[in-house]
């Protein structure tokens, strides 16, 4: 599958190309819609970075963005891994909520380094049943690096469910972290959730 450039989309070819690329016309998710989601996500992130809000104000904004654009239930389920099998539904719910706040603070902090920088969508391609949207991150005084988003419509809505920064996978990183937190607390899920809320 060819990598489609942004320019190709804006010249009106997008409808034709997307229709040719999607095997089932019933599928709501297309290259164009996957790219649209990430374009909107990038625009929102850039807006928050440029807003000059206080740190805690920014984290709130990032939490809103995370909830709006990502498949939060899948990300939380993946991060908990096999331990989810022994978790009660109340624990799963509490974990989802705590995890969203934790992710927003953790990655929001990193986005601070983005001040003065920008993300740019460079291409989309279909992978199995979902789409991969490639972007380049331009940071001040640093060579641009690749950030990739995976978008699926599993939930009925187009949402991103994983992100790779130079090959480093957000889901795997967080599963490792949550797993290590559980190990340290002898597998105590409630304790892990309580501590996750406190983590900055």
């Amino acid at each position, binding site marked *: 599958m060819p990598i489609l450039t942004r320019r190709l989309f804006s010249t009106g070819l997008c409808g034709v190309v997307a229709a040719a690329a999607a095997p089932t016309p019933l599928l709501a998710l297309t290259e164009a819609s996957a790219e649209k989601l990430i374009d909107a996500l990038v625009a929102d992130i850039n807006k928050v970075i440029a807003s000059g809000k206080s740190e805690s104000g920014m984290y709130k904004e990032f939490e809103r963005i995370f909830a709006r654009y990502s498949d939060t239930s899948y990300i*939380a389920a993946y991060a908990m891994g096999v331990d989810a099998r022994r978790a009660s539904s109340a624990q799963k719910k509490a974990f989802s909520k705590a995890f969203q706040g934790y992710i927003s603070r953790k990655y929001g*902090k990193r986005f601070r380094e983005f001040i003065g920088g920008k993300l740019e969508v460079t291409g989309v391609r279909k992978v199995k049943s979902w789409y991969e949207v490639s972007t380049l991150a331009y940071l001040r005084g640093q060579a641009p690096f690749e950030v990739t988003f995976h978008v699926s419509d599993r939930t009925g809505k187009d949402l991103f469910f994983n992100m790779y920064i130079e*090959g480093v996978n957000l889901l795997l990183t967080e599963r*490792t972290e949550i797993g290590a937190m559980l190990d340290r607390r002898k597998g105590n899920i409630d304790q892990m959730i309580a501590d996750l809320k406190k983590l900055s």
Partner: protein
Amino acid sequence: MKLIFQFRFLFVSLVLTAFLSSCGTQSAESLARGEIFDPYENTNRAMHKFNLGVDKVLFRPASKGYVTIVPPPMVDSFNYFAENLSMPGMIVDSILQGDIKQAGNATARFLLNSTIGFAGLADPATEFGVPAVDTDFGETLHHWGFSEGAYVELPLYGPTTTRDAVGIIVNIFTNPIDFAPTRPVDNLGVWAEIVHRMGDRGRYSDTVDSILYESADSYAQARLLFLQNRRFELAGDDQDANLELYTDPYAIDTEGF
């Protein structure tokens, strides 16, 4: 040049034979699934503890001091200088990988930056549109078909793999810069690299701190980050090399989350 090539072949065949016969290897299937092969975990964890100590009392404060005292444009200059010194080695590695275009880019960078770039302190090559080159002997071994080997954390150096560790040793000892007859430049490459690393450690100190000091298991995080990023680097433009590593959004039960 010829001497360097011969030395590399000799050295590599010696070290690799020693390495590969002494340790078990990862199966091809488990490597394709992106699994982690860490048979020396106990030793590695001890080494990680040592490295954390060194970082805490020496490297981190020195690096933070360095980027506080030295103005950012000068830190940039020292980074360019270190990168420029590594170019002759990268020319050799590019040739060994059969990548003539990359060898040309590395040569162009070295010639431009060493002359009109004030002995490498500036980077006019990038302004002229010569692409950045970043390779090493570990990548050459990868091109020659050697698999990653076991994960190792080296003292003072940090995360790597047995294959890349061989690469590091070869790169240090066969840096063509050190073959210059004037003795004082000996090891200049190593010193420049340390300063380069201090610049990065100081500049991205928040991010590095969050991995080393804020995560529940910094050893496991560093290992995962290193291996994923290294595999991504080596896969290059071969996008399908990563396919097996992708997570499937339909493969997990999300009930209740």
